[in-house]
């Protein structure tokens, strides 16, 4: 076993006494994981016959931990190129790596915008050089995200692009969107939507409700999401395009998505860990860390999102990772930039939900692995017999959220200087060579 601070490169090892969660077989049991010659060999539950003749194996005591496959994130904002004062592909990739991620699909709202094979290749190249996680850039549907001219969809597909999005730059011209979707359907590519109606959300910075009323903050009504979602769903149905809805925030949106899925439309959706963890009351006292887009909504919205994960209306939990520099968050609340840097803290947030029985551990792991893998059409391996091992071992130990323990360059990490419980302790990487 060779060890960097996080990654353990292993050949023959038994990981003992861990809670193993397999998102494919839905195994969720305490036991031992046997890795032989760098490959995941088997999982032996505590109540099964215990292994013999494993003398040459190293033993890793993983008492109290949870073992999962590596995670996949949809919709991260990587600030490079263009906004490197907020973070770089290397810094945020490292934060994702330490947060247990292997793959992330990033947004095209960089400068220049990812709307051509050249910029697409540049971002992939930078991610490869950084060498931490695999970055799958989603490309802009329209040139410069301006909603006026289609990007070169087929060229981008040939360059390896796996999907298209306007990010938060909505196309409000319905005819333009209709044509874009028809064209992207021709290329048989999925579209990723951030449903928020520009005019209904204009000038707003907080969920329309009791807290925004009290604080006098310009509101973003829930209908800014549902009106946009309703239109998008109708046009998606017409085009027959595969669609994923990112960072859903409101109760009624869940109903709309559920109805569309019930009709058999190829629709998936996710909620961010922030929207599952917090509600509108987090912005009391104008705490700009919790200034998010879409805004944190009511407690009943949050409950509906958790139920959406539980009953498979939402197939993925994203981080919504969006690093900001100090100046972007240091202003009166409505003037601050939205977003939260979540990679360093998402496991702690999820464990808090799991420990309070709001989220099932299996659903959580599925929403970070098999769910997004299916949406992105990407590989998920490392945890089934015969595969080169690739695992996260998550400790429940308390840790302090501070500069030393966080990797993101963003200054918008929640709970800074507080103690949280739960972090990826080791990443297991199977290796067949001797070292």
């Amino acid at each position, binding site marked *: 076993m060779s060890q960097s601070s996080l990654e353990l490169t292993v050949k023959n090892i038994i990981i003992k006494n861990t809670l193993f969660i397999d998102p494919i077989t839905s195994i969720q049991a305490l036991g031992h994981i046997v890795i032989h010659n760098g490959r995941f060999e088997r999982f032996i539950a505590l109540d099964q016959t215990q292994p013999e003749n494993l003398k040459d194996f190293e033993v890793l005591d993983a008492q109290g931990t949870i073992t999962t496959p590596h995670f996949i994130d949809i919709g991260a904002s990587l600030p490079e190129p263009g906004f490197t004062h907020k973070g770089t592909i290397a810094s945020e990739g490292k934060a994702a790596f330490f947060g247990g991620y292997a793959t992330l699909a990033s947004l095209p709202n960089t400068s220049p915008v990812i709307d051509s094979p050249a910029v697409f290749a540049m971002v992939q190249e930078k991610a490869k050089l950084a060498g931490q996680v695999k970055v799958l850039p989603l490309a802009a549907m329209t040139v410069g995200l301006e909603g006026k001219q289609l990007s070169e969809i087929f060229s981008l597909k040939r360059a390896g692009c796996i999907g298209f999005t306007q990010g938060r730059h909505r196309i409000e011209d319905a005819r333009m969107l209709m044509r874009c979707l028809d064209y992207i359907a021709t290329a048989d590519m999925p579209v990723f939507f951030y449903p928020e109606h520009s005019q209904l959300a204009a000038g707003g910075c907080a969920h*329309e*409700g*009791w807290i925004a*009323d*009290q*604080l*006098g*903050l*310009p509101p973003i009504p829930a209908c800014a999401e549902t009106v946009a979602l309703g239109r998008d769903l109708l046009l998606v149905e017409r085009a027959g395009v595969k669609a994923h809805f990112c960072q859903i925030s409101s109760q009624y949106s869940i109903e709309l998505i559920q109805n569309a899925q019930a009709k058999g439309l190829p629709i998936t959706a996710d909620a961010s860990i922030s929207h599952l*963890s*917090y*509600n509108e*009351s*987090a912005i*009391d*006292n*104008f*705490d700009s860390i*919790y200034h998010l887009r879409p805004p944190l909504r009511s*407690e009943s919205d*949050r409950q509906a999102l958790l139920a959406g994960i539980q009953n498979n209306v939402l197939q993925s939990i994203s981080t919504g990772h969006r690093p900001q520099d100090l*100046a972007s968050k*240091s*202003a*009166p*609340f*409505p*003037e601050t930039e939205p977003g939260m840097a979540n990679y360093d803290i998402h496991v702690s*947030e999820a464990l*808090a*939900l799991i420990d*309070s029985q709001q989220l099932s551990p299996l659903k959580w792991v599925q929403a970070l692995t098999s769910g997004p893998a299916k949406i992105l059409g990407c590989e998920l391996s490392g945890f089934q017999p015969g595969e080169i091992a690739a695992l996260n071992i998550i400790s429940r130990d308390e840790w302090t959220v501070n500069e030393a323990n966080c990797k993101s360059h963003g200054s918008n990490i*929640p*709970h800074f200087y*507080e103690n949280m419980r739960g972090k990826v302790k080791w990443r297991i990487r199977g290796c067949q060579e001797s070292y």
Partner: protein
Amino acid sequence: MSIETQSISPQLTSDGQLQHFLTLEGLTQAQLTDILNLTDSFLNKSDRSIKKVPLLRGKTVATLFFENSTRTRSTFELAAKRLSADVLNININTSATAKGETLLDTLRNLEAMSVDMFIVRHSSSGAAHFIAQQVTPEVAIVNAGDGQHSHPTQAMLDMYTIRHFKCGVENGTMQNSGFENLSVAIVGDVLHSRVARSQIHALNTLGVKDIRLVGPRTLLPRDQHRWPASTHTQLETGIKDADVVILLRLQKERMTSGMLPNENEYFSSYGLTNQRLKLAKPDAIVMHPGPINRGIEIDSEVADGPQSVILDQVHFGIATRMAILSSVMNNHMQARRT
């Protein structure tokens, strides 16, 4: 339950004293009453003059107005001067902020000039909270209006005005008794009004049980059932038998953003005329934070009539602000000493 987030009001010291004056939310009835009583002590009853006292001698108070204002700024300046403070008026429109300096940098520069107190008005809700969280502990912040959030000194002078005209006097001093039996109607653009928000907090804390918010649905909060107030879309039912009718200023931009058709229609439905005022109690008082729009919120006959106390509000504003500035500075200095 959502994950707990740390939420600490920056305006109170660890023992609950006001070190800044940002909002009336969360203040106790005793704290509000202390301010009203102190206001009383600054007013000479006989000649309606205001005493000059040395409570802020040697202190520098800066008014930092990022939004235009005539009366609020003037009354703050007068209040600080009557407390013997040195007053610095910073004109933001021609200052470095207009040249692109961030709010934070402007603050740092002013701190370096050893200003003891900032009186801040800003168009963004939460600006005073933000500034209070950013300044060094030596500086006290008084909110002179932030966005649509809060205008606590205006609400306090309104409470003083209500107490002056509507509450009892015992043993020569004003009492709060009587607040609980009052019916107070707040009419107009409640949704976008920082004055209304602060008034509702103050009235509720002082024990007023019948607070009514009156206006069309486009100008009332949506989550109405959670406010400690009833809502009325008809002026006639809203002011019926009220003791106090508070009118709010209507911003012209409401007409261009689809919230109202035009000024005439607003006046015909919600403008306070002598005829409509008859629905309130015969001795009801009419208040307005100013500046008034004659013929839009209020008919001139009412504005200049015997039930209007609009100019009294302005007069009491100076003493109220003296009370607030001196208590905050006093608490602030005590907190720094311990």
